[in-house]
Structure formats: C-alpha cells, structure tokens
C-alpha cells in the first residue's frame, strides 16, 4: 500500500501500471491490465492507477468500486436495452388503440393477446417505462456514469500531464507501432521534427528525446459526453416535480370559450373555427395513392384566441378578459404564450350545434312544410312559436340519446345524438300532440297525430382537443444533449496520436500510439520518415 517510486525518479500513486512519467511497467501491477500475458502494453488510461481497483475496505468503498467498474456499467446498459425491448412486445397502456373493444388494460391484453398478454399485464409490462425497476435501472446507469467518470478522469489527466518525452525502452518496445534503426543522423532527426511540426504535432523535447503529440483533447471526449448525459438525467429528474412540468388536455368546441387547465384559471381559450382539410383526390400527384389508400388528411387546425384574466380571480366568477394572442394552431405549429404551449392533438367531429325542424301533416306524402323552427342545442328554449300559429314546447331533450333499460337517457354530456320530446300545439287551441324526434327516429306517441315533425336541417361543429404543456426542463435537456454531442464528436472524430523518438547510441527508436485510427497514424509516420534513414514502424499487433 505504498507509493511506487520508478527508477526514473517519478513517484507514482499505488495501483499504477505504467509509470506516469517514463512508462516503465511497474513491477507487480502488470496483471491489472493483463500486460503480463501479452507482448504489447495495454494503453487504456495510459496505465494510470484507477483508484477503484486499489482499495476495497468499507461499505462506501465497496459500493464505489462496484459502480466504478465498466463491466458493471455495460451490464446495466445491456439490462436496460433488454428491458426497453420487452416493453415493445405489446403496446404500452397509453398506446392501446382508441377503437379497442375495451381500453381497460386488465381486459385488453388478455382479450387481444391471450395468455401471453395476461402475463404481460400482470408483470406490469404495460407500464414498463414508468415502473420503479426500469427507473431504478436508468438511475443506476446514471450512478455508474458519475463514478466511472470521476475514477478515470482524474488519473488519466494526471498521467497525461506528467508524461515525459523520455520513455523507458521497455515501454517503447511494447507499443503497437515500433521500429529500431541502427544508424541515424542528426539531420534525419531534424527532418522528422520539421515534418512532425508541419503535421501539426506538438513536439516536446527532453535531452534529445522527442514526444510528438496531437489531439490530446479528444481523450476528454468521453468525460464531456458523460457530463452531458448526467445533465439530461438531472433534467429528467426535475421534470418529475409538478412545478417544472405540466401536462393537461382541453376540449374546446367551435365558437366556445373555456379556461385553459393548469393555468390556475389565468388563461382562457376561444375556438373561433376548427378546420379539417383532406387532400384533393384529383390532385395528379397523389391520385394513385389516394385511389389505393383512401382519403388522406391534409390539415387539422384550430383558429384560437387566448385571453388573460385580469383583476382578482375566484374560480367560476365572471372574469374580466384581455386578449393576448390570436393564432392558428396546427400540427407541427403549436401556439406559445407565457410559458405554456398548446398543441393540436385531437378533434371530435360528431357534435351537433343546431337542428331545424319542420312541421307537416302526417298524411301528406310530400311532407310539405307548414312552418319550421331552429333549436340551438347548447341552449334549447322551452317553447318555439312558429309563424303559422303553431307553438312547439320542448318537454325533454337528450343530447346523446340512448335507451337504457327501456328508459330514454343521455349517454354523455355532448350533443352527439340529440333527441327531443316535443309537444306540438296546432293553432286554434286543438289538443297538443306528443312527438319524439331524433336522428333517424320519429315516433308518434299515440299513433293518432295529425302533424308530424321532421328534421329539415342541422349544423354540426367540431370540438378541438388541445394539449397544454409547460416544461421548464426543456432548456436543461437541450444543454445536456448539446454537451453530449460535443463530447461524443470530440472523442470520436479526433484522435490522440503520440509518436516517440528515442535516440539510442547511434540509432533511434520510433514508437507510436493512438486511441483509434491506427491506419492514419501509420500514414503520418510514413510521411515523416520519408527521405530519411529511419525505418518504418512495424505493426506488432498479434493477428487474432
């Protein structure tokens, strides 16, 4: 457990594999990187002491060492990979199709996928990605990221900072690229140095020993990208707090106005118009495809106005409103105001807005209208007086009519299938007649009515479904992603190349190392030794 003093005089931390300064393999530590069994030196982390591999005492140290292992990290990644894949075998709960016979997950999975679906549901895989164990898995990857990075960055940084141009011959001989030339001149050496500089290598010299280095910063790439990932994970964590992230949904009918949920009643939205367009089936470009696949939607759009409430507010009390914004909300064109964003995300087509009825004589085959009236379905009146002296009173109204155990009732709150019970009072005080009228229904209660009501006309309207979002964590995600990209490009598109020139009696040893793209390094060396006596390096990698 003591520090290791190398013969070059440098004192290395315990656990060092290759002396930080001269690279001489430290005796007794070669098993750590497997150098004892191979001809070439393992150069990862430049043979520096990864502390995790040297201590193993308290629980804290043990936990630390566990997460510090790349092996553990890779296992966690593999487990996350498998778990993620599992979640796509059957749809997640949120993707159960809207037209499924039952959207209740306890029924859906079994009825659609049989026993396997049942098992899938019982294991909780229908909500896999928000399950505690999946989140734990991702969190463990995060922990592993932090600890692995800390444990490797510091020693690598120190080792690269402390490296000296003069390297131990053992170190050089055991590099993948190596050559030894017996006779070289000073002129040769000078040529090499000029060419190295031309190739934009940084050349360090110590007593005639040369270290030419290029692209060291690419070694920091992995740590930079890990920082980016950690920021992304922190953002994901923050997103769980309700303040940082808001997700609501609101339906607004055409012509109506409503409060935007999640804004504490501060903002209202008015749907001036909802537009649904489809592609023209005669468009020569798309004719063929439309003929095969049927009509294709072209646009969903809500013409919206946003109002802000001013003055003190009490939920439900008539508010004072101030127009903030008027805009078209389309798919791919959300509307932003304050810190909120509204997205076009659904629509309802089958809602009626008004219906016009006509009165005609029951036995008139032409059903000639004697008079008509229009019912506003959002606000039906009790009585309608017709021009011809008839009056019609509304005795019952079912916005979404259905028969339930022999009783008429409304299935929902919305006028999707409106039906009425009318009392028709002909002029001249005759007895009133009862009529039941709905879509495709016209029932005469007694069968003896002289007059009949028919639907002459109706207007439908759309209801637009909008998602309301507020997400303060987005900038953090963007920063994290940007840092990740910088790090990954830095690490992947640049290479850390080092060439050592080691004068030895009359000749010279040349060794080279890179973290990737050996082919490129070889080409570099080939170029710098041109026109000199120096031998080309040999690739000593054992062919597997």
């Amino acid at each position, binding site marked *: 457990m003591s520090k290791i003093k190398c013969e070059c005089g440098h004192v290395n931390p315990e656990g060092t594999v290759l002396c930080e300064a001269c690279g001489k393999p430290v005796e007794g530590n070669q098993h750590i990187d497997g150098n004892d069994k191979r001809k070439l030196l393992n150069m990862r982390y430049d043979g520096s002491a990864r*502390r995790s591999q040297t201590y193993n005492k*308290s629980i*804290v*140290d043990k*936990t*630390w060492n566990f997460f510090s292992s790349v092996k553990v990290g890779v296992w966690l990644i593999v487990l996350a990979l498998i778990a993620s894949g599992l979640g796509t075998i059957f749809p997640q709960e949120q993707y159960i199709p809207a037209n499924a016979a039952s959207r209740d997950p306890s029924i859906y999975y079994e009825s659609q996928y049989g026993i396997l679906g049942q098992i899938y549901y019982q294991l909780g895989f229908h909500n896999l990605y*928000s399950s*505690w164990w999946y*989140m*734990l898995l991702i*969190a*463990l990857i*995060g*922990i592993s990221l*932090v*600890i692995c990075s*800390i444990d490797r960055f510091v020693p690598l940084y120190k080792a690269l900072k402390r490296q000296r141009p003069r390297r131990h011959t053992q170190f050089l001989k055991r590099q993948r690229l190596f050559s030894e030339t017996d006779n070289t001149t000073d002129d040769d050496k000078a040529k090499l140095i000029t060419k190295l500089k031309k190739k934009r290598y940084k050349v360090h010299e110590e007593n005639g020993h040369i270290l030419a280095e290029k692209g060291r910063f690419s070694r920091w790439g992995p740590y930079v990208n890990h920082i980016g990932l950690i920021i992304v994970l*922190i953002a994901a*964590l923050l997103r*769980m*707090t*309700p303040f940082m992230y808001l997700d609501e949904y609101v339906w607004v009918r055409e012509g*109506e*106005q*409503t*409060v935007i*949920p999640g804004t504490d*009643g501060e903002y209202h939205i008015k749907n001036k118009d909802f537009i649904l367009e489809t592609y023209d089936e005669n468009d020569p470009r798309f004719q063929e495809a439309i003929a095969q696949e049927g009509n294709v939607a072209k646009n969903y759009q809500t013409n919206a106005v946003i109002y802000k409430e001013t003055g003190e507010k*009490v*939920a*439900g*009390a008539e508010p004072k409103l101030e127009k903030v914004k008027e805009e078209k909300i389309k798919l791919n064109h959300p509307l932003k105001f304050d810190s909120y964003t509204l997205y076009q995300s659904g629509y309802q087509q089958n809602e009626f807005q008004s219906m016009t009825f006509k009165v005609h004589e029951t036995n008139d085959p032409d059903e000639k209208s004697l008079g008509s009236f229009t019912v506003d*379905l*959002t*606000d*039906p*009146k*009790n009585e309608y007086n017709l021009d011809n002296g008839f009056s019609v009173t*509304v005795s*019952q*109204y*079912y*916005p*979404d009519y259905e028969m*339930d155990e022999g009783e008429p*009732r*409304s*299935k*929902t*709150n*919305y*006028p999707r299938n409106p039906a009425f019970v009318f009392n028709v009072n002909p002029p001249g005080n005759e007895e009133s007649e009862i009529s039941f009228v709905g879509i495709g229904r016209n029932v005469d209660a007694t069968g003896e009515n002289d007059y009949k009501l028919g639907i002459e006309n109706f207007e439908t309207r759309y209801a637009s479904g909008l998602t309301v979002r507020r997400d303060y964590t987005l900038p953090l995600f963007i920063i994290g992603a940007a840092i990740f990209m910088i790090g990954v490009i830095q690490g992947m598109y640049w290479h850390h190349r080092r060439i050592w020139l080691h004068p030895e009696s009359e000749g010279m040893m040349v060794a080279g190392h890179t973290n990737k793209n050996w082919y490129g390094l070889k080409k570099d060396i080939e170029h710098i030794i041109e026109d000199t006596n120096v031998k080309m390096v040999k690739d000593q990698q054992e062919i597997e």
Partner: protein
Amino acid sequence: MNNNQSKSNKKQKKRNRLIFRTVVLAVLLAAVVYALVSNLTQDETAVKAGTEAPDFKLEQINENNERETVQLSDLENKGVMLNFWGTWCDPCEDEMPYMQSLYPEYKEKGVEIVAVNLDTTKFVVDKFINKYDLTFPVPYDSNEEVMNAYNVEPLPTTFFINPDGEIEEVVEGGLTLDKIEGYLQQIQPEQ
C-alpha cells in the same frame, strides 16, 4: 519523522477520499430516492382530505333556491357537502334523491349541500331539477373550471368540507343515504 509525516499524510488522504465518496454516493442516492418517490406519488390529486377547499364563485341555476350565485367563502362556519354531478351520469342521478331528503334537516343544523352541475345545457338541468324537486343550490360550471380546480376525475365526486373550510373527506363515486348522513354528521358545526 519523515516516515511519520508521510503516514499521517496518507491517513488524511484516505479520510478525505472516504468523505468525498460518501458525499457523492449520498447525493446520488438522494436523487434516486427522490425519482422513485415522486414517480410513485405522481398520480395523487392536490386537492385531498386535510387540505383547504379552494374558493369558487358560480351562477346558481336552481329556481327552487333563493341564491343567485354561490361563493364557497360565503358559507364560512357551515359544513359544506360539495357534490360534482351531471344529468347524464347514472350514479349521480341515484344519489340526488338521498341528498334532497337530507337537505332540509341538515340545512337547519348548519350544513349546506352544494351540487355543482357540469352539463352543457341548462335546459336539461332544469328538467332534471324539476323531476326530483331539488331545493339545494345548483351552481353551474359548464366550462368545468371549478371541476378542474378540484381535480375531479370521475363523476360523481363529493367533497365534505368542515366549518373551518378544510376538506374532511373526498368520495369518488356514488353514495348511499346512510353514508351521506354519516359524512354530514362529521362536518356538522358544533351547536
């Protein structure tokens, strides 16, 4: 001397490392626990038993009742049974007669029954009120503002609010006569 110094140095270093590792692990652990806990508690509504009932003001549409508007804060010192309902909703319809039958008695005892309606047309509400001869106030919340403020999901949902304005109980789904009476007694002001 030198040896001793390096030994104590080493001890110091070791302690520092232990502290560093402990702190990092503790922070990471805290983050993980926070993630798991907040994930598990995400679905809970903010308006729940034990919290103060949010104030609201709505137009009152039951012609059998003398109020023109209902504002919750005006009902201070009274118990309030705050029911959210719609005419199309079956279990809502089932519990209305029970509420009506208990209303006169408990009004005397200082408990107000407030049934917030969520229909889109007043017409059907009027018909409904007449069908069951309801006399308690029916505030009209057709754009679901108060419903959202209370985070109501299924209908009916009923909040029993004590005279201090605090929610005693939240019940999702229909209630029986006995149950309503039990809860009403809970929020009845002391005589």
